[in-house]
């Protein structure tokens, strides 16, 4: 991907970072559920 200004570059990087952080927010409770789902057994 080519960038023509610093603005472009930061918009791209931050955009991807927000997507990653969103994915982490979704994944974290799911993983916690996976870790603890046998605790009641």
């Amino acid at each position, binding site marked *: 991907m080519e960038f023509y200004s610093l603005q472009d570059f930061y918009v791209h990087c931050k955009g*991807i970072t927000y997507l990653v952080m969103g994915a982490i927010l979704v994944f*974290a409770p799911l993983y916690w559920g996976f870790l603890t789902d046998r605790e009641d057994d």
Partner: protein
Amino acid sequence: MKEIIARITDKVFEKQEPDQGCFTPFNIVAGIILIIGAILTVLRFTMGFETVTNLDNNNPWGIWIGFDLLCGVALAAGGYVTSATCYIFGLKRFHSAVRPAILTAFLGYALVVFALHYDVGRPWRLTYPVFYSQGTSSLLFEVGLCVFLYLSVLFTEYSPAALEWLGFKRARNIVVRLTIALTILGVVLSTLHQSSLGALFMIAPSKLHPLWYSTYLPVYFFISSMFAGMSMVIFEGSLAHKYLHHKMDQTHLDESDGVVLGFSKAASFVMMGYIGIKVVGLAIDNNWHYLTTGWGLWFLVEILGFVLCPALLFAAAYREKNLKFARAAAIWTVLGIVLNRFNVSMIAFNYHLPADQRYFPSLMEIGTSVFIVTLGVVIYRFICTRMPILHEHPDYKAH
């Protein structure tokens, strides 16, 4: 004073049960390593760096910093993690793990300071940054001050065991009352210097490979120290079970499985979080394209092979209540931490230099590090076989 010295001497030379004599395989191997270490120490302090190390102007920090200091501090994090778990979060089922963890942390930090004497040019000036000439704008000053303070805190946290052993009840009771304050101080100081050790490398953005260099380095070092500490508690617990089983009382034996599984669960979750922030680091610096290079492959080996895989093994251990999985994952994680610290301080550091100018530790440097680790193991064993570390002292059962 004479009485105190006489009591300490009597206790130190008290005969231990079971008595297997001096020439056990452990004693012989440890003795040989300590003799070689003593020779290397003499060489280091009489002949200088050039004789014992491969350090040069391009690589002034070698394995004594990468292993003895960075790995030593990270792996000693079990002290603050376990005491915070027990005394701050109130999870009293981890109580039996606190003393062994504090002892490991205390010895770890003491040996870090000991190893630092080998690595600095003028070790007799090691106290200067704290007492004589404070460089308050330097991260090294902050690390030095924190390590100095935290070592004092750890010594105080460990001292009730020694005081119980020596029979100094009043002094022991005074120190025990400070437990919460010391735990809070320990967590604060650990947060500061664990992260600052990572921040040290932020001064060299052009020397450290972009996949390891990040403005989040302090966060990476701090978060990774948490699961490093938990893994070390599991690892040393399994060693204690194997070799010091006769020194463990029923409470320790009953609680140990819960400690292993509890820390497995926590380590697994924190490790996944660590992978998450590593990916955030890649994204914010737009370093994705490096992943397809040789360095990228090595980075993936570290992250997938030594963080993701042990994290999943910890998860499997907790879900299946499988202690073997947990112990294997703990060793795997410890190796991963060592690999990460080596990558940051040596392997990915000065990555642009031609091969003949890259650093590789000399045999004598490695020998000195092995000597220091062996010294730690010998002192740990000495203390555990005498003091109430793996068992409660009969006079203080209520504690």
